[in-house]
Structure formats: structure tokens, C-alpha cells
């Protein structure tokens, strides 16, 4: 949104392609047009985004292409003037081709899927998914909720559920409380990001006042139920991530919100050949970029979580810088002028990035804990129904297999409907740790067209 707003102000002709039915992404996910929700995202932390959303919707020169999924990005071979990319878009009615001179990818992220036994039971959901039901659909999507994870988002979602009348049976953080106090280690960083901290602190205070137990040093071990979620097994875990199965407690609930962080949606960038790097705690495969947020592919820009999961504030600033980068590339602005405009943006970005780095470090559950949760019976690839044990056995049987692609070809892991989004992280870690090689050598799944499943009658009319 910030990139489109800036690019439009710089005089570029801009189209925004968004899979959702309204702009706003996930943070500012809007209620449907039929609803009137006067108290929608009224908090201070949301104010800038709401203003931006208003500008986007009211900007007649922007073309919004909604309910549309970019299935593929190709270099244009035709050589017509200035056109460099051809985007194949799965629109609301048909496949369409969009030509453009530059592409800016800002696909955001999705909740990190953690493989533990029972994570596929109906009722186990991403904490972000539960929040989207509240925020956009105005639905409390269950009766009795438990939240478990390592990311502070779960405090905010639990608070929102409780305020909307849902019962929250408990919120469990895997970190020790002392670890969370580490957030205040750098007073300057904390003070300059007061809004985000105040939001989390406010949620904590309201939950405690409402009698909702918020525990630290506890993790979900497994989820159980016949046909749907009925209980969640909670166990103590130490600062090093060691769990105590002998002290397990079963908590009754019909919804579990899982909140261990986020993965960047880098598949379109990888499909286009953009160089990536691996960072497990900041989104998995992240796209490399220069100071104007151009990837290794000329004309292909990136902004937001795809460069490292850092939240909406960082995403907006990166978007503005990337828009300036596009304008330089397309000759609409001089490099000097752009550098001048970028200066205050870069200063704010540096400050917010420090906070995001701290939050990322704080929210990472740790390899040791993840290893223990990924027990043999846990589903690793949910689409092809393969367990952690299946993949470990495959690695034992085939000692030469050491890449994600090779494991995929032998097992079908990553070939299902989600296109590997929900197993790549677990599989990459599994191979990396099993073979004792860095994730960069395990490599990413080769991303191919279409980025998401498309009905065959749309491709072959």
C-alpha cells in the first residue's frame, strides 16, 4: 500500500494486484463492504495504516485488481517498448496477462506452521487466522480458546477474543519470563517503539485482569481429539528448550491458536530467479536486495516481510523506498532527488529495524524446542500426509539425499495443494540437522508456475 501510494505520487502508472477482496493485507484486513464496524482497528498502532488505506481507496489513478492471484512472472520476450515482465494472474473470472516495466513484490507472510502431533486436527489454527475471523468477519470462531507459542501476537489475539466474549483458557509462552524482560534490555529501542510495546502490555494487563492465565516456560506438546480438537497437552520447558513430559497438563478447549512466528511468502520471487538467503527466525527463505530494494533480478523489487519478517511499520518504509527505486529505474526521478527523499525514510527504517531484530530474536522458539516438538508421529507434509518419521526414514534409506528438492521427488512432500508452503520450513530444518549441513545447502523447493493451484479449465478453456 505504501509503495503504491508513493509510486503513484511519483507519477508512475500503478496497478495493485491483491488476492483478498479489499486492500489492506492481513494487518489492516477490512470487514466486508456490507458490514459497518465503527470500532474497527481504533488503536493508536493502526492509525497510520488506516490513513494510508483511505488514500489508496480514494486514489482514482491507482488500479486495484482484487481477488486476483499472481500465478507466474515471466520476462517479456516480445521486446515491445519498455515492457519487461508478463504476469499471469488468476483473476476473479479468468486468467489474465498483465504487462509491466517493473514489479514490486510485497506478498507478506503467513503463520509459521509447526509440526507437532495433532497440529492438523480441525480446531487447531494459526493465531493470525483466528484474528482474521475477528478483525474482518466479526466472528468469534470458537467457544474455548488456548494460545500457545513464542510470539507476542498471541497476547493481542487472546485479548481481542476475550474482549469479544470468547473464553480464553490459557496463553502459553515457551520462553522463560526473564527472557521476555530481555525486551527492555535496550531502553532506547524500547522507548522509540512505545506503541507496539504498549499494545502488548495493554493486552497482558487486560488478560490478567479478566483472570486469563498467561504462563511462561510452557509449550504445547500435542493436540488431541476425536474428529476435532478437544484437549491440548501443555508441558513445562526450560530456557534451553528442554521439555518435561512427566509434568504434562491437558487443557480442554475447542480452538488452539498456534503462534511461533511467521514465514515469508517468497515463492514468486524464487520463481523469478531472485537470489535468496535463509533465516529461520525471520521468515525462512528471504529475498536479497540492494539499497533501493531491487532483487538480484533487474526490475524486480521487494518490500515487507519478504525481505525479513519485521511488521507493518518496516514494510511501509521499505515499500516507499522500493517505489523510489522503481522510479529511478524507470527514469522518473533523478538518483540525487530520490536519495534526498529517502534520507528520512532510511532513518526511521533503521530505528524500526532494530526493534524488529530484537522482536525476532525474542520470539524465536529455538532449535532445541522445535526438534523436540517434531516427534516421529507429527505430520510434516499435511497435503501428502507424510510424518516426520517418514522423512527421517527416507533420509536413512537414501544417504545421498541432502536437498529439499531431492526429498520432494522421492517422497512427494511439497507437491500438494499448499505447494510446500507448510512443510518447507520443517523439511529444511529436518534435513539440515539430520545431515549436519547449513540450510543454504538444503536449498529451497524450486518454485514453479502456478504459485497456487488453478482450475484446469481456466488454463485450457
Amino acid at each position: 500500500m505504501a509503495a503504491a501510494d508513493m509510486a503513484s505520487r511519483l507519477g508512475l502508472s500503478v496497478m495493485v494486484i491483491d488476492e483478498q477482496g479489499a486492500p489492506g493485507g492481513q494487518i489492516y484486513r477490512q470487514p466486508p463492504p456490507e458490514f459497518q464496524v465503527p470500532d474497527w482497528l481504533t488503536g493508536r498502532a493502526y492509525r497510520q495504516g488506516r490513513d494510508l488505506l483511505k488514500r489508496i481507496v480514494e486514489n482514482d489513478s491507482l488500479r486495484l485488481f482484487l481477488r486476483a492471484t499472481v500465478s507466474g512472472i515471466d520476462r517479456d520476450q516480445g521486446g515491445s517498448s519498455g515492457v519487461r515482465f508478463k504476469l499471469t494472474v488468476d483473476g476473479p473470472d479468468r486468467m489474465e496477462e498483465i504487462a509491466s516495466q517493473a514489479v514490486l513484490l510485497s506478498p507478506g507472510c503467513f503463520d509459521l506452521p509447526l509440526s507437532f502431533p495433532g497440529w492438523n486436527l480441525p480446531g487447531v489454527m494459526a493465531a493470525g487466522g483466528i484474528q482474521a475471523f475477528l478483525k474482518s468477519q466479526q466472528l468469534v470462531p470458537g467457544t474455548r480458546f488456548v494460545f500457545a507459542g513464542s510470539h507476542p501476537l498471541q497476547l493481542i489475539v487472546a485479548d481481542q477474543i476475550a474482549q469479544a466474549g470468547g473464553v480464553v483458557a490459557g496463553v502459553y509462552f515457551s520462553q522463560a519470563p526473564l527472557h521476555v524482560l530481555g525486551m527492555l534490555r535496550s531502553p532506547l529501542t524500547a522507548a522509540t517503539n512505545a506503541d507496539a510495546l504498549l499494545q502488548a502490555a495493554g493486552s497482558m494487563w487486560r488478560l490478567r485482569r479478566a483472570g486469563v492465565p498467561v504462563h511462561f516456560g510452557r509449550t504445547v506438546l500435542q493436540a488431541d481429539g476425536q474428529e476435532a480438537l478437544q484437549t491440548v497437552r501443555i508441558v513445562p520447558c526450560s530456557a534451553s528448550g528442554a521439555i518435561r513430559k512427566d509434568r504434562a497438563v491437558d487443557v480442554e478447549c475447542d480452538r488452539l491458536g498456534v503462534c511461533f512466528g511467521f514465514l515469508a511468502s517468497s515463492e514468486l520471487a524464487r520463481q523469478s530467479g531472485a537470489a535468496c538467503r535463509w533465516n529461520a527466525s525471520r521468515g525462512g527463505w528471504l529475498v536479497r536486495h540492494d539499497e533501493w530494494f531491487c532483487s538480484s533480478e533487474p526490475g524486480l523489487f521487494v518490500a515487507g516481510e519478504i525481505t525479513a519478517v519485521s511488521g507493518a511499520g518496516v514494510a511501509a518504509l521499505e515499500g516507499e523506498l522500493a517505489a523510489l527505486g522503481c522510479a529511478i529505474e524507470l527514469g522518473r526521478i533523478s538518483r540525487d532527488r530520490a536519495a534526498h527523499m529517502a534520507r528520512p525514510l532510511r532513518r526511521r527504517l533503521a530505528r524500526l529495524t532494530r526493534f524488529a531484530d530484537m522482536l525476532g530474536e525474542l520470539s524465536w522458539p529455538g532449535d532445541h524446542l522445535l526438534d523436540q516438538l517434531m516427534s516421529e508421529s507429527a505430520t510434516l507434509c499435511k497435503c501428502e500426509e507424510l510424518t516426520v518419521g517418514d522423512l527421517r526414514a527416507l533420509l536413512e534409506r537414501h544417504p545421498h539425499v541432502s536437498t529439499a528438492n531431492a526429498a520432494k521427488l522421492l517422497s512427494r512432500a511439497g507437491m500438494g495443494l499448499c505447494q510446500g508452503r507448510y512443510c518447507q520450513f520443517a523439511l529444511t530444518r529436518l534435513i539440515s540437522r539430520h545431515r549436519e549441513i547449513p540450510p543454504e545447502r538444503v536449498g529451497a523447493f524450486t518454485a514453479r508456475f502456478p504459485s497456487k493451484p488453478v482450475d484446469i479449465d481456466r488454463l485450457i478453456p
Partner: protein
Amino acid sequence: MRRKQPHVLRGGQVKLTVNGSAVTADAGETVATVLIANGIIAFNRTRSGEPRGPYCNMGTCFECQVLVTTAKSARSRWLRACMTRAEENMDIRTGTRLPGPGPIEDAD
């Protein structure tokens, strides 16, 4: 499971069927919302028969797929419940096995 009422003004209503039963939804709701509001959380079954329900609620996980027949098209389609708006006269089937390669099972 409840629709937030205070401070939310809703538009009209749509009538549709879920597994053959008549259901009323608020205009603008997704199929996922309609199902959950009606007490359904298991949306489909995997090829091996395991129940599955919505996970991400933003169109990435494909766990919430259901068979949907609309007034516009004659045949049913697998659609992501979280990305599909409930429409008048829609018919939604839950609990159906997902198609795909693998051992051939008897049809439900």
C-alpha cells in the same frame, strides 16, 4: 462461536444450503465463517480419511477446501472456504474426501 453483535451493523442476509440443510448467513460472510457459525469445524477429509479444518484463514494453507455449487455453475468446485463469499442459493458440502493420486477409495 458467535457473531459479534454490539457495534457491528450488518447488511442483508443470504440463504444457502450446507449439506442439504437451509442456512441463513449475513451478506459479506465467507463460507468458512458460515460453517463455523453453524458449529462445523471439520471441512473436508484427506485422501486417507483424516478430518481437516481451516488453519490460516488467508488463502495459503488450502486446509479449508469444501465442495461448492453456485447458482451460476452447474458443477461443484473445490474452493477455499476462507476466500469464498457466501452467496444466495449456494450449496456447500463438508466432509468430502479430497481428490488426488493415491489408492482408489470407494466414493463417499
